[in-house]
């Protein structure tokens, strides 16, 4: 059972891999299933990738080698556009600061992974409707290692780590933190 995701892989909010879509675009293969045809995240990613694919083709056809690390830059650009779609305001004194929900999620997952015997899985962050800027709700699913200790203690430690990370690393307050244990591992 794999509980660690390779860090190079980027999951779309719908949990599909961006790299898979790129491979299909690169091979000229249409969307493989109904999800990929209709999911807003997948279709947005695909449109961007198709655009970049044709642009890089043109570039490759020129007697000029494509820049090093081009695929990496394409992935980063598509990722940036996807993240830009879900921004929430941060409480900066002069305003004008926004952060992507997924950037917050990465920090919270990282904090969770540092709790012994716990692996973070999916994490979604959203702004609470009607709440002031910087107050968010978090849903996170976890995998626990067998024999780590009483679940109540472990969950309390996770909750404390998540709340502290939100405050110290980002500057948001978590008003609602829902943890779901999805799995156990040896």
């Amino acid at each position: 059972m794999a509980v660690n995701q390779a860090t190079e892989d980027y999951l779309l909010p719908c949990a599909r891999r961006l790299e898979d879509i790129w491979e299909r675009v690169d091979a000229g293969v249409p969307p493989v299933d109904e999800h990929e045809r209709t999911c807003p995240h997948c279709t947005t990613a695909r449109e961007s990738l198709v655009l970049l694919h044709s642009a890089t083709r043109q570039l490759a056809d020129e007697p000029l080698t494509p820049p090093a690390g081009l695929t990496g830059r394409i992935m980063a650009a598509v990722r940036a556009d996807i993240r830009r779609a879900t921004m929430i305001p941060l409480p900066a004194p002069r305003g004008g600061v926004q952060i992507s929900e997924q950037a917050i999620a990465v920090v919270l997952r990282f904090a969770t992974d540092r709790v012994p015997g716990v692996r973070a899985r999916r994490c979604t962050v959203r702004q609470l409707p009607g709440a002031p800027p910087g107050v968010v709700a978090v849903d996170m699913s976890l995998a626990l290692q067998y024999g780590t200790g009483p679940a109540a203690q472990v969950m309390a430690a996770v909750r404390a780590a998540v709340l502290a990370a939100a405050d110290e690393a980002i500057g948001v307050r978590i008003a609602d933190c829902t943890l779901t244990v999805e799995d156990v591992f040896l």
Partner: protein
Amino acid sequence: MARKEAIVVDQSLPPAGWVVADSVIAAVAARAASRAPGVLRLETGVTELLRQLGERVRRRWIGIVPASTAGVTVSRDDLGVSVRVSLALAGGARAVIVAERVQQAVAEAVRTDTGVELAAVEIAILAIEPETRARVAVL
């Protein structure tokens, strides 16, 4: 790049007042933001990446390397010139504070280097890489 989007800096000056192109403001802002403590890099979207790839071809003909404007967009409205900076941050510093310092650094650099007083510096934090640590301990 954005020569036709040039703006008059000070409306009160006679028509001989100087003009700063949006791409110059973007380049100054990008440089200031990328050097701010806690900033890992500026984040580029698909549209910008396409433009960069085109620019690379053009560069071959004119033989110069233009200053990077990646990650910065410049806009104008009734209030004046505003910039929007897209960032990836290192871990180890509070994101909201890093963003605030970038706002200050960008406003100051654009004021000093171009004479333009920005109406707003908007920050979009698109990524944080917690496994990298900010090089400065002050934050």
